[in-house]
Structures are given as C-alpha cells and as structure tokens.
C-alpha cells in the first residue's frame, strides 16, 4: 500500500507535556466485527500464507 499523505499539520506539543519515552497509551480500540474476506486475488493469498504460517508483515517482507 502506498502511504497516506496528510497535508494538515500536526499540533505543537503543549507546554509541560511529558511521558515515559515520549509515548502515552490512553485508550483501547473498539471491538472489531468478524467478517468473511473473499479468498480471491494476490493479496488474499499473502494474507492466507501469513495466517496459516502465523507470520507477521515484516517476517513476510523478508
């Protein structure tokens, strides 16, 4: 996938903002919906390979 280009700027860091290693987890993702993906096309095949061999994207890249 091509990367997403965002032209609106990020906000300036507020005064006094601090976090361990500059990262602060705040919330969790909402629950996902289980749906059926179509077993069709080259990208599905890559997905199936990852899933069946329990591999991650970066392992797959290698």
């Amino acid at each position, binding site marked *: *996938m*091509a*990367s*997403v*280009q*965002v*032209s*609106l*700027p*990020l*906000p*300036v*860091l*507020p005064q006094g*903002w601090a*976090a361990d*290693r*500059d*990262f*602060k*987890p*705040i*919330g*969790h*993702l*909402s*629950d*996902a*919906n*289980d*749906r*059926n*993906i*179509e*077993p*069709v*096309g*080259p*990208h*599905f*095949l890559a*997905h*199936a390979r*990852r*899933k*069946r061999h329990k591999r*991650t*994207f970066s392992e797959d890249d290698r």
Partner: protein
Amino acid sequence: MSAEHDPAQRVAIGISFGNSYSSIAFTTAEGKAEVIANEDGERQIPSILSYVEGEELHGGQAKSQLVRNAKNTVAYFRDFLGQEFKSIDPTPCHQSAHPVQHESTIAFKIRDTAEDKENEVTVSEITTRHLKRLRSSASNYLGKDVNAAVITVPTNFSNAQKEALNKAAKEAGIEVLQFISEPVAAVLAYDARPEAKMADKIIVVADLGGARSDVAVIASRGGIYTVLATVHDYEVTGLKLDQVLMDHFAKEFLKKHKSAGDPRENDRALAKLRLECEAVKKALSIGTSANFSVESLVGGIDFTATINRTRYDLLGNKLFAAFVRLVTHAVEKAELDPLDISEVIIAGGNANTPKVASALGAAFPESTTILAPSTSATAINPSELSVRGAAIQASLVQEFELEDIEQSTHPMVTVTPHLSHAVGVLCISGEESSGIFHPIIDAETPLPVRRIAIIATPKEGGDVLIKLAEGSRHIKVTKPEPKPKKKSEDDEDDSDEDESDEEEELREKTWKVGKVLSEAAIKGIKKGGKVEVQINIAADLGVNAIFREVGGKGGVRGIIQPPKATQNGSA
C-alpha cells in the same frame, strides 16, 4: 484420474457461467486475461443447447433454434442447479424447453437423440453438456486439453448449488479449482490491470444481467475484498428490457397492420420478436438509433421499423429507475452513504446501455467514479468482467494442490476481524484549538493490518504531538439558503418541484473524533519536516506504532494493549 489432481498437469481457465451467456478466458504468460471466442467467434456464448435430429447445437446456433425448435432448446437453466423444483421460477423458460420435476431434481423434456422420443435430461446433465462445449472451445483455442477452471457464481449461490455445479463440471472433465463470486471477480478484473493503483475504497458492483440483477457493496482494503452487503432481484432484468421493446414494436406493427394478429400471441412470432428486440437493444448501446427488421413476423408480413435511443431510454425508464433503487438500497444495507462509494462498476450485459450508467451516475456524487463503457474510455467490457477475474484467479491458484486451496478458503482463514472505526491522527485545522481527524486506516479494514502515513508539521517545525484516535464518518448536510418564493397563483401545483429543488442540499463527508488511543511526542523537527507514522494493528486489536521524523534517526515506539475481552459482559 491422477492427471486431474496433479497441479503440474493442469490447464486451467476461467469460466463465467450465466443464465443467459457464458464466457471462457485464460491468463497469458504476461499475466493478462484474454477472453476466448468459440468456433463461431462468440465471446459471449449463449448458455443454450438445442437438439436437431440428434445433433447438438450450442451457443448462438442453439439460440436461433428458439424460433423453430423451441421445445428442444434448453435455455436459462443455471439457477436451477442444485434446487428443488418447487423453489424455482420457470418464467425465463417460457419460450424454450420447460423445466419439469425429475425425482428430487429438475429436468427438461427434450428430443435430444435421433430417435423420435422425448427424454428427461436433468439440469445437471445439461450443465455438463454445456461445460463440455465450453471446455472444448477453450481446448481448441489453446491447443491444450483444458482440465481445470475457476468458475464464477452469484454471491447467493448456495452450497447445494455449488456442489451440483462442481459435480456437473467434473462430469465434463473440469476440475473446479475454486468458485469465486461474480462481483468479486469483477473487482479483481479491474485490479489486475497493470495500471491499477492499490487504494482503500468501497466499490459497488451493479450487475444487470439477463434473468436477474445483483448488487454487491465491497470494501477493498490493500487488495483484500470484503462483501459488506448484497441485493438480488429477479424482476429488474435484461429480459424485461427486451420485453419493453417487444411491446413497443408489437404495437407499432399492429398500428400498421390492423388486421394481422398480435405477434406476441403466436409462439414463433414471439420468438422472432424477442431475438430481434435483444439485437436492437444491443445496437442501441453503440448507435443512437437502430433498425428492427423481421421477415415474415406474422401472417407472412415482413416488418421493419426504427427506434432511437432516447425513445428506448424512455420506454425502459421504470426499469432503469428500479435498478438504481436496488443499487442505492444495497448501499443503505451496508449502512453507508453514496458519498462513501469510490467506484461503481456496472457489470452484466445491460451495463452496455448508456442510460443504465447515466441513471446510476445521477444517484451518486461527483466523487464517485462510474465504470461503464459510456462513462469511462478505459472501462472493461462489462460482459467480460466475471470471466476475466476468474481467469486471473485460475492463474493464481492453478499450481496449488486442491487441498491447499480448500484450506485457504476455509472460514478458519477467511473469517477475519475488521476494524469497526477508522483509526487516524488529529491534525490542526483553521483554529488551533480543535483537532481535525484524518484517517490512516479505514473502518472495515481486515486485521492484521499495517499502514504508514506521512504527516505535515507546523511551518517552523519544533515539537509536535501525535494523537492517535478512532474516528467515525459523518455526513454533514448543509441546507441551501431558502430561495425567496415567487408569489404566484399556482403555488400549490409547484410545491412538488420546490421540494425536489430543496433536496439539492450540500452533502459532505466529515469526521467525528472518537476515542483517543494514544499520545506521542516527536521533538526538534526541522523546518518543513514531516512525520512518519507506522501503525500495526494485530488481529487481537493490539496496536504497535512507530513515530519518527522522515529522514530522522530513532523515533518513538508505542504499544496500545488490546481491549480486555468483553466476554460475559465484563468489559
């Protein structure tokens, strides 16, 4: 036997098998799908068999037998496969061999041998014969014995129907590598083109075929497809459009020949009328007018007439409008708005009709691309979308063991969690205080997923805050300024028009910021620098993010834990 199961011995093609037409295609060594013409030069091969003194005719040759030999001509049988007699609608077969109940299945009573006797030939056997003819045409063309195929089926084809088709194909010497659904095949046909760019989008495939119409709303995320909603209809069809023309020309004929009978009341005249009207309809897809010409329509009278496209558009108006309603209904069923739809692929033979494309175009905003021959010079022939997709898929899977293909298509692999909300970052809008959500990963994206975004920073650079959040798409409706009303006597009568005027409100897609997921800081960004955010979301909804200045060293890593399992309501 064994050759059939040895992937190395496979010669695989794609087959689209419709109630009206079938097509065959293969993928070249360069990865391009090519549609194969049969011995008569047909790429859209009528799914029809006809028997004349024991000789089997197929395709267009069989179709012309509908005039003289309708009883021994079998047409519109695909949807009967794997069904019980009581659950089928035999209407499309009214002008050809009628389906009858045969034990637990369906058959056609035809004289298919040289003997003077009718046989009950099951729909399964008819399908086998039809597929044998397709297989032989493909084999002749390729100079190799075709023995495997990917076949397209509607999204609502039941397992029983697939099993029946699988069996019939096997009898025809075709190992079915995989059934894929028609609308997904259409999307793949477009995505497989070398110039296709991968993007996250919602696609509607609107298929106006011969005996049915089918609509599917499909999320395409990084080349992976998820069907979000489907609609099927058996009333808004190409056959009905033919009927509209048949009624028109029958009336014209009766105007000229008052004493002659109604061609719709005589079987042979009706068959001639239908064939010619389908040809006229096809001609109107290319030309702005077309000629109708039938020799000896009724009572030995030849009849010719012309029709222009505008007239046809008007005659078919109800059906075109009904088709548009099916499509918008499918979008609603997917809980989406027309503004969410990036592309509408118009498929099926009737997609060639310019009015079908323009009527659909009017139901979607300008941001939606309508892919049909009349709206896009680069549109793929809508009659060939399914078969091209099937051929591409055949080339992708033909080297696998059948067992491997089956495993990969098993729900264990295909059932996948999809994001319920978009995930993105908060940027700065006009007034600095309020953030604006910018999506990086859309809702309905299957997990796991990885996406990268490149984001601008304030002009001066410096320290920035990166807030990851969920967002929901919101449709913002702006009512136009009320127009000063013209005072007039017939205000009442005008009220209808006024209302439709007012519907021309401005509708926009905006985002509502939802749950904030995390904050991260990148410090000391140089002037004009950009920030790269990489987001990995695992199947368990755990997030792993990396933030860094583009071209800079190091960066910030963050982990957002998956939500606690919400079993037993204890969140």
